[in-house]
């Protein structure tokens, strides 16, 4: 996320943020302690993971499967919990 | 500057009386200030309104009138409630709505100048209502000459619209009928 280095003279009047949608630059992926792993062979493409994702970071790929964008995915595990075919499992993030 | 206290009961229009005279005085090019004795007024409870009129000087004081030059009493029952008359200036004027005779009232109250009128009977007859404030305007003007009687017509019309005519009639009747001495 930008803005950490801004001084008071750099701010717009009333702390208005003039760049629309700049929240998308905010990386929430590094909040994650577990990441979702998918076994797409059993996936029926129902899209429930896409619907339930509170971060709205799951998107549909060209084949109709669903994938989480790990730049934003916080690892909450709701997609794994809701998946009716147990396609998604949460695995611990490893130290790099 | 003339300072006036108007004693009435909630619903009798003491505050309105003060406001009407203020508007009339201002329309004559005078300075005036009407001020309610502040508070959530209740019908029937004693209320007090203040009025100041000045020919030339702007009115600066914004506080209650403590020693009035003129005292208007809309309800004779209020004469029994506390020190209504005692704070009137020695050379002051009391204008009282009463069914008693002028002489009887004069003997009861020790005031320099007294105006009396049976405003309740006039109001009932002319307006069909026991609300005496506009009627008492007539007696007040006769006793004090603080504004011209006709200066009150526009404020009364502005305030009462269609029923202004009757209020003006009541005022004029009280002006004619009030006894001043």
């Amino acid at each position, binding site marked *: 996320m930008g803005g950490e280095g801004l001084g*008071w003279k750099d701010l717009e*009047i009333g*702390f*208005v*943020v003039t760049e629309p949608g700049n929240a998308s630059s905010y990386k929430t992926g590094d909040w994650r302690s577990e990441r979702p792993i998918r076994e797409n062979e059993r996936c029926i493409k129902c899209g429930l993971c896409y619907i339930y994702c509170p971060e709205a970071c799951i998107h549909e790929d060209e084949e109709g499967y669903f994938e989480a964008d790990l730049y934003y995915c916080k690892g909450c595990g709701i997609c794994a919990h809701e998946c009716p075919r147990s396609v998604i499992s949460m695995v611990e993030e490893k130290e790099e | 500057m003339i300072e006036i206290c108007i004693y009435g009961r909630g619903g009798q229009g003491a505050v309105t009386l003060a406001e009407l005279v203020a508007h009339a005085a*201002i329309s004559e090019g005078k300075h005036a200030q009407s001020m309610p004795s502040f*508070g959530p007024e209740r019908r029937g409870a004693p209320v007090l309104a203040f009025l100041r009129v000045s020919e030339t000087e702007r009115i600066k*004081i914004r*506080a209650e009138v403590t020693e009035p030059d003129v005292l208007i009493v809309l309800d004779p029952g209020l004469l029994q409630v506390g020190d209504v008359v005692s704070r009137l200036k020695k050379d002051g004027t009391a204008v009282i709505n009463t069914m008693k005779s002028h002489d009887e009232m004069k003997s009861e109250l020790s005031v320099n100048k007294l105006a009396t009128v049976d405003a309740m009977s006039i109001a009932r007859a002319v307006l069909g209502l026991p609300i005496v404030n506009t009627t008492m305007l007539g007696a007040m003007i006769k006793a004090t000459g603080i504004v011209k009687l006709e200066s009150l017509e526009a404020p009364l019309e502005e305030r009462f619209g269609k029923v202004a005519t009757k209020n003006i009639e009541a005022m004029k009747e009280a002006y004619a009928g009030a006894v001043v001495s």
Partner: protein
Amino acid sequence: MTKGKIVGLEGSFAVAEAVRMANTDVIAAYPITPQTHIVERLSEMVADGDLDADFICVESEHSAMSACVGASAAGARVFTCSAGQGLELMHEVLYIPSSMRLPVVAVAANRALSAPLSVWCDHSDVMALRDISWIQMFAENNQQAFDLTTCAYRIAEDKDVLFPTMVHIDGFYLSHVIEDMVLPEEEEVAGFIPDYEHPFVLDPDKPVSMGCYGPPFIYPETKKAQEVAFDNTRSKIQAIWDEFGEIFGRHYSPVESYKMDGARIALLTMGSCSETAMLAVDELREAGVDVGLIRLRLWRPFPFNELREAVKELDLLVVLDRAISFGMGGPVCSELKSALYNKREELKIVGFIGGLGGRDIQISEFKYMVTQAQEKVKAIERGEEVETEIIGVREGGGR
């Protein structure tokens, strides 16, 4: 200079006239004594088609200010008014238009705070609003209630200001008093308050984010920006008052003086009792006392320089507070002491508290304050502790 016409107007109606002539777009307000006549009159004007505004009937003062924030963010010219407990319920939201730099205009009909329940005038509600970062000023009569409300629009909406602005009128003493005043020509007022454009408004074609959250890494920077901008409004406020004076012939300044030539003692007041205090000064001058009167017109931003200038020849400043900062004394007196600290050590400041919860302040009370303050100075010089006196308060204790 224009003449306008002399009219008898209640203070509340004078405010409503100013709001109407300013061609206000949105009014969101909740009625409360003693502000009620302002909203009643405004809703009447809107209903009769005399004012083309949206009148939002809200369910509380909290909602009133919230609606004002939204409307102002959309670029509308916005007005609200309240008093006492209503301002307290509004309190949380009052900080938001100022931080977001939205030029909402408000009038407060000053009222005491409960308990015990009081609908009557004092400045307890004002003093609770000291730190909301609104430009705040006091009116002394109905003319000023009109003039300052008119100026409030210009000040708030000035591109170098853009802060909400509040005019304080004493509850009942102004809000319910009818007196003669000059009502300017409508076109003249409209000319004085042209349409304004905020640099940022809610606009789908030019989206911005307003009211973002501020984590610790940026919050202090936002507050510094706000404080600098707020401090810098002083010269604009004076410039707009000067412009008003040139057009309408009535002049205002952050600190105003009365009979201060040669004065060694001065009373200091705000609001509707100021002209009563002038009469006390007249009588004391007549009796040979070198006394004058200083009135605080601008309350926020605090007029440090003008105040220091006003007191520079004085030996004694006698301050009347209409509120108590419990455990601290009179709030205005405390602020004056702080503003003058290290500036003039020989100046003595004595504070009184009076007019609480609608208790009347007569000329005699001001004369008493001046006399009594001189006695208190002697006690201070003897090294005695002098407590802040509440004028006219009964001791009792016989039970």
